[in-house]
């Protein structure tokens, strides 16, 4: 998909995210809106996958370690044809396919790992990357993590091991939006310069605006070019929580919470999204 089409697609997906959360009357819209651009570029331009064969062994994997941001993942998976779009509107209801956090136990097509408890995903991604290498498969493993998730210890254990084992088909995508549940990350628990920290751990680091689609494209290209470098790639995306909706942007309270019908209408009109009838 070309740059302009990617931008339009990301915006349409933002509209889906907001409708899902409004209908569910709960959920996490903020991080999801912030990650829309980078995940759209990944899923519509780089990821090698087949929605008709979600378990195709040669596929690339995307793991959402910051599982609460799943509305954007679900919106993408539906749009790519993993399951009918109607499922989006049943999010978080009893018996629904789409659980409040990603679940492989629930067999949500396209979901690669159960998440929701922060800190676990990067280790699983590393294991998948090591397994692919051992199998001689050319799978690339992408894993998103959030900035507040880096307050946990485990991501740093994975960060150390990924360099030790020289796993260069692993790309971590940081949702660096400076927000968490109790407020801005700087006031709650400052995580400092995460790009510098991962660089010090030995990763290839690209630091970009996560809303600059051209920059996202070149960074993923650089990751592909890093094959054989013996180093994992850290794509540090400076994102804005709630991106695209003025009253949500950089407001930690939109980490979770449903919009009122009125707020939804305002948000969709700001995004230029027209509801299908």
């Amino acid at each position, binding site marked *: 998909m070309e740059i302009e089409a990617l931008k339009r697609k990301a915006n349409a997906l933002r509209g889906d995210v907001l409708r899902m959360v409004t209908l569910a009357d709960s959920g996490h819209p903020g991080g999801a809106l912030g990650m829309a651009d980078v995940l759209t570029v990944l899923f519509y331009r780089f990821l090698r996958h087949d929605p008709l064969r979600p378990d195709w062994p040669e596929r690339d994997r995307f793991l959402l370690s910051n599982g609460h941001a799943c509305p954007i993942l679900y919106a993408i998976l539906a749009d790519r044809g993993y399951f009918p779009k109607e499922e989006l509107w049943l999010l978080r209801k*009893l018996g629904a396919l789409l659980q409040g*956090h990603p679940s492989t136990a629930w067999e949500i097509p396209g979901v690669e790992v159960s998440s929701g*408890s922060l800190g676990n995903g990067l280790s699983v991604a590393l294991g998948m990357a090591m397994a692919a290498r051992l199998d001689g498969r050319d799978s690339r493993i992408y894993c998103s993590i959030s900035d*507040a998730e880096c*307050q946990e210890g485990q991501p740093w254990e994975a960060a150390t091991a990924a360099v030790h084992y020289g796993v260069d088909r692993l790309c971590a995508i940081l949702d660096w939006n400076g927000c968490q*549940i*109790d407020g801005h990350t700087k006031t*709650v*628990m400052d995580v400092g310069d995460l790009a510098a920290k991962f660089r010090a751990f030995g990763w290839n680091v690209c630091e970009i605006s996560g809303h600059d689609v051209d920059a996202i494209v070149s960074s993923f290209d650089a990751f592909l070019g890093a094959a054989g470098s013996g180093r994992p790639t850290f794509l540090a995306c400076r994102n804005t929580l709630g991106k695209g909706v003025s009253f949500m942007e950089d407001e930690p309270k939109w980490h979770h919470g449903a919009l009122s019908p009125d707020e939804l209408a305002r948000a969709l009109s700001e995004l230029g999204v027209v509801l299908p009838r």
Partner: protein
Amino acid sequence: MKFARFEGTRDAYGATLAKLGHEDPRIVALTADLAGSTKTSLFAKEHPSRFFNMGVAEADMMGVAAGFAMSGFRPFASTFAVFATGKAWEQVRQVIAYPKVPVRIVATHAGLTVGEDGASHQMLEDLTLMRVLPHMTVIVPADAIEAAAVTRFAASHDEGPVYVRLSREKFPIVLDEGYAFELGKSPILAAGTDVSIVACGVMVSAALQARELLGRDGISAEVVNASSVKPLDRETILASAKKTRAVVTAEEHQVAGGLGSAVCELLAEERPTPVVRVGMQDEFGQSGSADVLLAHYGLDAHGLVAAAKRVLAR
């Protein structure tokens, strides 16, 4: 049976802790990016210098709380039950339970009633994980009145660590305002002669409703509030079982390892009695609203009535 008042156990905890902070300058409160959700934000507002948000770092929080306790403070460490007991179990075991360090672990959002967030967040194994630890005390308040009383108890309990299990939802008030909590005592809330329902947490209100429904069928149920899961009130439970000769246990938790297991262990060794355990039957939950989930998994008055009839048919 209709309950007149509903209140969150976490709300009662937050309000009581903030109040206690004025009485006791050695109380400190810690959380892991969940100040608002655990209601420790109320303490933070009134005692900012004794409140510490550790970020999303539960293992670190438990270690830091241990350090405070070992230096003469009275720390309360609060996060969701799934993270307090899951993410940090090893730290709780090594630096809190084993050395018998009086950290007050007050966990919120336990059980199915977490609701829409789904199975990843619905902690249904915490009673097991905490109960197996030597030195650990485990309490599940039945309502907000008991949650407030238990918070006071925990603050003064310097003998060892305490785990208190609280919830997200507002639960019916089942106890009287003047209620006094006593560790290891499980008051009989309603007497009966045919079957004993030994319940904790939100299941106590369901047990009282079930008692009324059973009464219409001529079955007299006794309701025991087993908030003190460890130590268990052996005398009360054994005496009740002796009287009714049929026991139903009820908890918003896996049937393996929690209150039901504790009661079965006691009865098997001291007074073999038919038991039916109501709880999660070795499965994870799913997304849905709290009420819908409780009904779906049979953790409500109707589930308890069916269980009572099953145990009486044996």
